[in-house]
Every structure is written in structure tokens, then in C-alpha cells.
């Protein structure tokens, strides 16, 4: 049984010989495309397999365009990869590989220190003071505490959104696309589609962001990843002409 990790152009297949990591990939090629495959473990997949799968795709995406497949994509043999993965959708896959060629995905996580934010927001806010007094009044219980907590949570979320927009403005301005992947009480996660040649600019922008967020939010900055978040939303003009003779 094979694990199929990702797809690349056949003429880039030599990159598979250079990547390290826990996965030892090889190429299965057809129709100008190559699938990066490895032997599936006898046991079920584990977290280590997930990490190894992503490490491989990141290593590939650093050097060449790659289309990631979902973790756990399996095929019984090379023929199945050629006949069911590569050949039936060769035109579409080739177009997608061309479309992602100039881009990588960067992800930014901001985890705010809510201790500090709560204190900052609550002081001097008349509505919060009123709800706090009500939650401490004789006979008050869980509903009053929940009402207070919900009101504070809304203000915290608003404040986090304002600061996030301010801090990430530079990074957003140099990205071709951005997508909010999570915005909850735990983390604000945004993905950015960035041209490869602008990676250093993005790094510099995040370095400044880190300085601005110091003491207020933890910053996790990840990449370059395959463009997971933008496969269906690549910039106009990047799509090459279809290979079909009817594709004018």
C-alpha cells in the first residue's frame, strides 16, 4: 500500500531525491506529472505520520510547485496512482501546478494574553462595571456571571480584531491573498498567499509585527507551506491556457 503525499511536475521529480525527513518518497509519473509516494505503514496512521507528511510537502514547496493531497491518501500500487490520480485530471492538475508556481503560503497565529486585555478593557467601562456589580449582588448566580463574561468576551474579541488588523496591515499589503482560518478565544490564524520573491519582505514585516505584539500576544509564523488555503482562489492571470485544443 502506498501513501500519496503530493503532486508535482514530472520534470521536478529529482527534488524527491534531495529531501530528507522521515518519509522516503519516490516518484510515480504519468502525463507530465509526478506523484510523491511512500510505503504506507502496516499500522494505522499516527501523529508522527502527519508531521512527516507535512515536512515532506514543506520541503518540496520550498523548491518547486507542489499540490498537497490530504493526509491518508492511499493507493494499492503505482498503476492506481497513474490511472486514478494523475491521468484523469492531468490538464487540471497541470494548470493548478502552473498557477501555484510563483506562490507559497504563510500562516500567522496570534494568541493574545487575555489577562492583560481583560484588565485593560474592563476598567472604566460603565457597562462592564454594571454587569460586574450585578454578578456580585445577593442572589446573583451563574446567569449573571455568564452575562458579565460574555460582555467581556465580546470586548476582548473586538480589541483583538483591531490590534490584529493594525499589526498585520503590512503583511497583508504585500500578500496577494489572505484568508482568516480561525478567530476565536484561543488563536487568530490567518493564511497569506505570497510570491516567492517576496518571502524576505514578509519575514521583515513579521519581525516588526513581533516587536509590536511583544508582551500582548504570542506570534507563531509558519511557512513556506504549499498553498493549502488558496487552491480554489489563485490570482487572475496565473492560470495558463488549457492544454486542450478547444481551450482558447
Amino acid at each position, binding site marked *: 500500500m502506498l501513501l*500519496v503525499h503530493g503532486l508535482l511536475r514530472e520534470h521536478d521529480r529529482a527534488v524527491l531525491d534531495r529531501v530528507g525527513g522521515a518519509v522516503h518518497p519516490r516518484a510515480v509519473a504519468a502525463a507530465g506529472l509526478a506523484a510523491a509516494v511512500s510505503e504506507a505503514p502496516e499500522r*494505522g*496512521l*499516527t*501523529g508522527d505520520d*502527519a*508531521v512527516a507528511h*507535512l515536512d515532506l510537502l*514543506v520541503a518540496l514547496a520550498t523548491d518547486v510547485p507542489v499540490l*498537497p*493531497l*490530504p*493526509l*491518508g*491518501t*492511499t*493507493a*494499492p500500487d503505482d498503476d*492506481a496512482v497513474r490511472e*486514478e*490520480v494523475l491521468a*484523469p485530471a492531468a490538464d487540471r492538475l497541470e494548470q493548478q501546478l502552473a498557477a501555484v508556481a510563483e506562490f507559497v503560503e504563510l*500562516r500567522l*497565529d496570534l494568541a*493574545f*494574553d*487575555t*489577562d*492583560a486585555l*481583560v*484588565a485593560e478593557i*474592563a*476598567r472604566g467601562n*460603565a457597562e*462592564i*462595571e*454594571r454587569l*460586574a*456589580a450585578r*454578578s456580585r449582588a445577593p442572589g446573583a448566580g451563574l446567569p449573571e*456571571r*455568564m452575562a*458579565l*463574561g460574555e460582555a*467581556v*468576551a465580546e470586548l476582548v474579541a473586538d480589541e483583538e480584531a483591531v490590534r490584529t488588523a493594525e499589526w498585520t496591515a503590512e503583511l497583508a499589503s504585500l500578500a496577494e491573498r489572505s484568508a482568516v482560518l480561525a478567530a476565536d*478565544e*484561543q*488563536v487568530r490564524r490567518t493564511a497569506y498567499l505570497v510570491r516567492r520573491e517576496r518571502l524576505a519582505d514578509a*519575514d*521583515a514585516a513579521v*519581525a516588526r509585527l*513581533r516587536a509590536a505584539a511583544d508582551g500582548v500576544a*504570542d506570534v*507563531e*509564523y*509558519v511557512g513556506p*507551506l*504549499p498553498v493549502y488555503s488558496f*487552491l480554489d482562489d489563485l490570482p487572475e492571470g496565473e492560470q495558463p491556457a488549457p492544454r486542450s485544443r478547444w481551450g482558447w
Partner: protein
Amino acid sequence: MTMASVNRAPRPSSLADVLDVVLDKGIVIDAYVRVALVGIELLTIDARIVIASVDTYLRFAEAVNRLDLQPSQEATGLPGLIEQMQEGGAKRKTRGALSGAGEKARDVMQSITGRGDDDEDEDEDDGGRGNGRRRERGVPASRRAPSRS
């Protein structure tokens, strides 16, 4: 060493976030016959997601009440002075409140799931900075790879 190597990680630091990237994400290949998706064995506590908002609201409520807020018109004279004196220690007091709320949330968790909340223990070991944030997350069922069909 370049700034980039200091600044940027090649992949997320937690397994939950790695799974968030790779599960059910990527190119969709239609008409699988012999090609399939296999699941991954995960220990998740979905109840964490359910009670996350309740937990947050209660933590925030406790934190605000530990600030000892008074209505604005009352926060003058001696009470106002006391409030100012307490302000410097408010952050530490807030963290204490959040720890207490975390324990209550753990009680709720145990009543729902019949088991404890290991992540809370990890938070308590991180030097006290983690009480106001929750980085480790369960993986929603919708994010898991489907079983082999």
C-alpha cells in the same frame, strides 16, 4: 543566521495545528476506486469545544470581579485609592482567578467526559503565563479524515 531562520518555522509547533493543516486539506481527486483516504488515530476531547465558550465567559467574569471594579460614581475617595493601590497587583490577582476558573472548568469537564483535562495541567507548568490563553486545541470531528470506505 538570517532573520528569516529566526523568525519563521517550517511547520506549526503543535500536533493539533499540524493536523489542522493536513487533514482533509489539499487537492480533491474525484472518482476514487482503488485510491482511498484512511483515517488517523486521534485522541480528541470534543467536549472541550462544547464548553470552550462557557469556560471563557466564566474565566472573564472571575477576572473582572477580581479587579474589584466599582461603578464609576462610587470609585472616589478611599475606595478609589484602594483601587489604585490594587491596580499594580491586578494582573497577578487576575491570574489567580483564572487558575481557579480553570479548576472549575475541569470539574465541568470531568462531569461531562468522565476524565480530567490534561492540557490544563500543562498550562500550569508553563511558568504562569499560560493561564489566560489556551493554545492546545482538540480537533473538531469535521476536521478528521474519513474512514476508509
